[in-house]
Structure formats: structure tokens, C-alpha cells
């Protein structure tokens, strides 16, 4: 019952992701040969390939630096895009994003707190864990403050999200001022978003949260679709609206929080990928969520490649790059949206 071109979108996106992963693995400050990368990867997977095709240095760069980094970029991008798609359905707003729930502001506060207390340098993984805890705390605060008056309305949630974000932002700046200067740099790097120096432990941690969260969200595809019809209609179709919404927001916070914890703030990916793909594959979750995952992953893999290669002198912040593309996209989409309604 689906038209032919839209059936090709997901395979095309999968192909694009595969190619961009290969490209991002090969390109960088030390370029690796494309066939060499393929050979080494095949050999690693136990398939016929020449393990020494890149030489010892090339192999070290590939397996300890490049590969974890591009895989992490894919996980972060895919996770944020799926969260964006889900939030856009739950809030019935095609321009919703995880930032609305206070994820970014909460994560930043958690990270700055960990740095301020000196935990970040003392305990490995303390910064991402604190960022993750901050994101979850912000989302829970938003949900329960908005729901305190009885039932949480959508407007209430959005406005509470803005208020909680503002408060977290204020506390973050107070802490930043009070933090010793040599520590501020750590947190600024993290706030700007980036994947520099991330290794396999980060990939494992992100994969556990992002992939399980995304899988659960995909399982809830049909309830998400029903919820997108509005509260009354969803309730009249037998959906437990409040419980469903709470589970979806919890999973969204888990995935977005984990992504933010490892990569810092990577804004607008959750907005752009699903928003651009919805006209192609339609809004039903069983088609939109896989497409958004692949599209978001490709976007961040390429953006990360850009941060490494656009400037020869220094690495650009990943979050700044996605914002430079995302903010104009958002403004154009906003205008189109207003022009219609």
C-alpha cells in the first residue's frame, strides 16, 4: 500500500550510512587508504582480508582512534534522531527536540558539577555519568512539576521545560564562575560537543543505553502513532495515555541523556533528521524511526568528519557544526510551518 519511492528510502539511507562510515574511517589528519581500511576490517571480522594492509601505525589509528569515534558518532546521531522523532509525535509538534525537556541543560549542569567537585579528573567516567544523571533529573523534574497540578498538559510540559532549562543554565553559569580556571577548559570542551579522544569504553556505554532505548522505542511504535492523534482520541482508542507518555519520555531521556553524556551537546540533529525524512516516509513510527536512526547517524558521522577535516589547524566543535547547519534549517522549517498554518 506504500508508494514505490518511499520504500527505497530506508535502503538508500542504510547505504549512505555505510559509505559515510567507511569514508569517515579512512579520512582524517592521517589519511588511510580506502581499500586498506576495507581489507583490515574484513580481516578483523575473520573474513578473507589482508590484516597488515595498513601497516602497524595505520592499524592502530584505525582500531583505537577512528573506528570507535565514527561508531560513537553514528550511535549519538541515530539515538538523538529517534528521540526527536518520538518527541515530535508525543508533543504533536513537528519541530520538537530533546532540548525541550531540559535534557541538554540538565546534562550540562551535571557535567559542570562533576568538574567543579574535581570528580571528573579523579574518577574515570564521572563526567559522562554525572551528565547522564543531570539529564534524567531535569526530565523527571519537568515531568513531575508539570504534572503536579493533576494532569500534565502539553503546554505545561513545554513551558516547564523552558523554566527548568533556564534554572539549570543559571546554576551552570554560577558553578562555572566558581570553578578553578584549569578545570573550566574540560567542561567547555564537553559543552561545545565533540568526540575527540573517545574510545571503545565510551562506545560500549553509549551502545548499551542508546541501542536498548531505541529498540524499546521502536517496539512502542504503534502506541506512539496512536498518541500522535491527540490525548482524547488516543484515550478513546484504549491507550493508557499518561503511562504511555511517561514511558516514552523516560526512554527519550535515557537515549538523549546517554548521547549527551558521551558527546556533549549536539543540537538540532533530533530536529533535522526526522523532520526532513517525514515527508518521504510518512509519520508512522515503524517507517519513520528506522529512517530517522539511519539519517541521524549519517548526519553526525559526516559532521564529525567535517570537524576533523575542515580546518587543518584545529578541530572544530561538533555541536557548533551541527548548530550552524541546524539553526538555519530550523528557521526555514519554522517559516514554512507558519506559512501553512
Amino acid at each position, binding site marked *: 500500500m506504500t508508494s514505490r519511492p518511499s520504500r527505497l528510502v530506508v535502503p538508500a539511507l542504510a547505504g549512505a550510512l555505510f559509505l559515510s562510515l567507511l569514508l569517515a574511517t579512512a579520512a582524517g589528519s592521517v589519511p588511510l587508504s580506502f581499500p586498506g581500511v576495507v581489507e583490515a576490517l574484513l580481516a578483523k571480522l575473520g573474513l578473507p582480508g589482508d590484516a597488515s594492509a595498513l601497516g602497524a601505525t595505520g592499524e592502530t589509528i584505525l582500531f583505537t582512534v577512528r573506528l570507535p569515534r565514527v561508531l560513537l558518532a553514528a550511535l549519538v546521531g541515530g539515538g538523538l534522531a529517534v528521540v526527536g522523532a518520538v518527541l515530535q509525535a508525543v508533543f504533536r509538534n*513537528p519541530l520538537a527536540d530533546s532540548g525541550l525537556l531540559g535534557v541538554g541543560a540538565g546534562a550540562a549542569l551535571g557535567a559542570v558539577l562533576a568538574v567543579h567537585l574535581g570528580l571528573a579528573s579523579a574518577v574515570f567516567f564521572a563526567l559522562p555519568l554525572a551528565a547522564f544523571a543531570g539529564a534524567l533529573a531535569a526530565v523527571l523534574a519537568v515531568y513531575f512539576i508539570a504534572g503536579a497540578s493533576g494532569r500534565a498538559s502539553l503546554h505545561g510540559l513545554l513551558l516547564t521545560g523552558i523554566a527548568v532549562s533556564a534554572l539549570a543554565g543559571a546554576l551552570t553559569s554560577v558553578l562555572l564562575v566558581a570553578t578553578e580556571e584549569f578545570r573550566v577548559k574540560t567542561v567547555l570542551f564537553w559543552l561545545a560537543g565533540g568526540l575527540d579522544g573517545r574510545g571503545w569504553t565510551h562506545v560500549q556505554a553509549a551502545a548499551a543505553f542508546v541501542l536498548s532505548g531505541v529498540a524499546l522505542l521502536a517496539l512502542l511504535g504503534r502506541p506512539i502513532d496512536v498518541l*500522535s492523534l*491527540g490525548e*482524547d*482520541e488516543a484515550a478513546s*482508542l484504549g491507550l493508557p495515555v499518561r503511562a504511555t507518555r511517561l514511558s516514552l519520555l523516560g526512554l527519550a531521556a535515557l537515549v538523549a541523556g546517554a548521547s549527551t553524556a558521551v558527546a556533549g551537546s549536539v543540537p538540532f540533529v533530533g530536529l533535522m533528521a526526522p523532520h526532513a525524512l517525514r*515527508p518521504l516516509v*510518512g509519520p508512522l513510527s515503524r517507517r519513520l524511526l528506522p529512517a530517522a536512526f539511519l539519517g541521524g547517524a549519517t548526519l553526525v558521522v559526516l559532521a564529525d568528519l567535517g570537524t576533523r577535516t575542515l580546518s587543518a589547524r584545529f578541530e572544530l566543535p561538533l555541536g557548533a557544526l551541527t548548530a550552524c547547519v541546524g539553526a538555519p534549517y530550523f528557521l526555514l522549517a519554522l517559516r514554512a510551518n507558519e506559512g501553512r498554518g
Partner: protein
Amino acid sequence: MSAREVRLSADSLAVDRGKRRVLSDVSLELFAGEALVVVGPNAAGKSTLVRALAGLLEPAAGEVRLCGRALESWPRDARARLLALATSEEEGPDALRVVDRVALGRYPHRGPFQALGEADHAAVARALEQTGITPLAERRLGTLSAGERQLATLARGLAQEPRVLLLDEPAAHLDIGHQLQLFRTLDEVRRGGVAVLAVVHDLARAAQWAERMLLVAGGRITAEGAPALVLGSDAASRAFGVRIRSHAIPTLPQPHFTFEEAP
């Protein structure tokens, strides 16, 4: 199955909005195969009544019974298989195709995980056919007129294959041709044994279609009975603040109504 089987009933129902009582002491019965129309001035409590009957609002007093059992004691999915609600305020995503929107009406039958089967696709096709929007099946909601979107909402309700159909101003955005088609569809559904209750703004249309009319004013039922009797009552003139006259026309089965501002 007797034709007088009660499908939905309310007993001394009251609903509060905040501290304000917006509906009080409403008792009614809706029978299988019946067309019951609810009329009343703006803010009389008609929409509140429909939403309370659908179980979307908690009663402050009294109770609603669906097929002989208290509404809240039904499991959610079982209730949604028996009772469908279609309102004129719908907010589906603009990129959603009509056929997919209507297919979401099968959710109470299949739940979150089970794939739609042949029976579901047949119910969807039938609902599209009955509402006359089969040609729009592949269109996206954002490309439809308000009236067409409303028909798609009704089709979703029909795809639920309910025993009770509740409608809040189903004809609000429809032109005259679509209105006539809508009420013909509702008659078909009713003849199939479904109990239909609809809030309708157009009094003349309401009187023409329904067998029985409820007048709601100030949160209470102030008149009930055959449409001609209800519209002819003092309660109706008072509720709307107009003078209502009925004119018998020999070529029509029902009287014709005219409305004038009260002096």
C-alpha cells in the same frame, strides 16, 4: 437481540470542571440501532456530556454504564472495541495518510504488537467506503479540507466497529452534499444495530435525522422526546432565546422549522 436493548446509559451523572459543576443530574438511555441527537446552546455542556459518556471525564457523581456494565470497570481495549468517539477537533499529523489514520481505529482490536490482519484491512476499506473517502485513501491529512479531515476521523471511528458511536458535531465543517452523505452513512450504521448519539448544531438537520432529541441547557437535560416536540417546547425557545415555529408541509414527512429572534 431485542431492538430495545440499552447500550449506553447515564444515571444522575454530574461532571465538574475545577470547582464548577458543568453537568448535573443527567440521566439517559441509548438503545441499539437508535439515533439520538443532542442539541443545546453554546456552552450548555453538550461536549462535556459526550466526553463523559466516552469515559474521558471522570464523573463527580452518578455513573455511566456501557452494555450493562459500569464504564470504568471495562478494560480499556474492550471498552474501545464497544464504544467509539469522533469529535470535530482532530489533530492528527499532517503527513499521515488517510488510510493509515483510519487503520489506527483497529488499535483496540490488535493492541501494540499484533500485526493487522485481513479482517482489519476489510474494516478499514469498509469505513473508507461508507464515508465516501476511498478516493482520498492515499492522500495526506495536511492536503485535505477541514470537512474531509472530519470524514477521515469518522471513518476511524467506524473502523473500530463499535456498538456505540458518539459524535461531537460531526457535520461542523461539511458542505451540504457532505452533510447529507454523513447522515445517510450514520443511518446505515444505525440500521446495522449500532447505537448512535450525536451532538448537532444545526437544529433543522438534527430534527430531520434523529428519532429522539435531548435538549441540554445550563448543564442539565431540559427537554427530551421526539424532535418536533422538543423543538416546539418552551424549554427550547428559552434555551436558545429564539422563537421556534414548526410548519407542516404536506410533501415532507417531518415538519419544517423556522427560527426568529425573540422580541
